[in-house]
């Protein structure tokens, strides 16, 4: 079960980064960066 959730987190991160690179509004890009922090920490099983 843990690994299924980690794969979901990884997909979400890829998706967010992908959209961040194509996004034109810099404030939306900042939002994306903020959302990435907890996702990355969970993917690495740090927090």
């Amino acid at each position, binding site marked *: 079960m843990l690994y299924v959730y980690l794969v979901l987190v990884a997909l979400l991160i890829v998706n967010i980064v992908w959209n961040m690179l194509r996004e034109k*509004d810099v404030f939306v890009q900042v939002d994306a*960066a903020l959302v990435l922090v907890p996702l990355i920490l969970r993917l690495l099983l740090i927090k």
Partner: protein
Amino acid sequence: MQLITRHNRTWAAVLLVLTALVCVLLAQQFLSMRVEEPIYPGPGVTEQRMLSDWFPGIKDTAADTPVYVLQGEQPGNSMLVLGGTHPNEPAGQLSAVLLIENAQLSVGTLYVIPRTNNSAFTTTDPQEGAPMRFTIDTPNGERWFRFGSRATNPVHQWPDPEIYVHASSGQRLSGSETRNINRSYPGRPDGTLTEKASYAIAEMIRKENIDITIDLHEASPEYPTINAVVAHEDAMELASWALLNMQMEGMDIMLEPSPKNLHGLTHRELGDFTDTYAVLMETANASQGRLRGRTNEALVVEGKDKFYVRAAQYGRLYVPFDENGHPLNERVARHVTGILQFAQAYNDLGLGAIAIDNMPTFTQINENGVGAYLNAPGE
């Protein structure tokens, strides 16, 4: 307002670098919670083992935790003290450490687990603003301890179910309680990490024929079960006797029977599923309460809070609460006295023999502070 630029990829790159930097800084902080506070065993400790010795299913996991064995000169009966069931209730861990660093057994055997939910020491509870550590002054320097979470680190057991169903009773609780070790007894060898840990403790009690098990807790001052002993029905006589002696030492404490329909707790399941006398003790900890003000190290150690003083004036609390608060010294003094009185009551009632010596008294811990009985760093 929209700031649209052709250089959005440049912005993205800058932001990604910043994100990485923030992640590194946060990771360093979060990972520092995995560093264990040092414990310096006293001459009474005859052996240091790991909980996985009794159930290998938790070996090399975050649930495995040290078990300190204090074997007496003469054979006798045995007691297990569980500190750190809930690492946001620091008097439990600290009382266990005090035993490890001071106690000497002349008769019987004492087992001490200072970090019962070892994983829960590696994180703090979200949205509590709690400090990660607190320090205690000793005559020869500072000692530090972690202030952890009530439940297993989600990183070690994830995800939580919507509803936690207690395995042996079918009791339904909110999903996050699945990581609360004191809702997981008697545990399961093939269950969650938390259930495996409580199973290991039950196995240890069964294999070592441990006669008395004392689980050390703290509670919010507004919680009804406080300054109390909760005892399984088999342990009621022992607890009543111990309680009388505690009261004679000047401790205000009450006795509550373990509710039969409240499952997963030590005082219910260890009493039902093993032959041990299962009891639990509670003291008053403002730093875990809902009415508290600023949550910092001082609140953990000194236990003073003006909002609790006011709540007491309104008659909303189950313990007296004045400007002096309930410092860690007082809370540890209560736990230690309770443990010693349980051993004494066991002897007095003719149930067996166990003698824990060389421990400071209620008054000594209160007056000199816990730090006076902690070994110096490096000792």
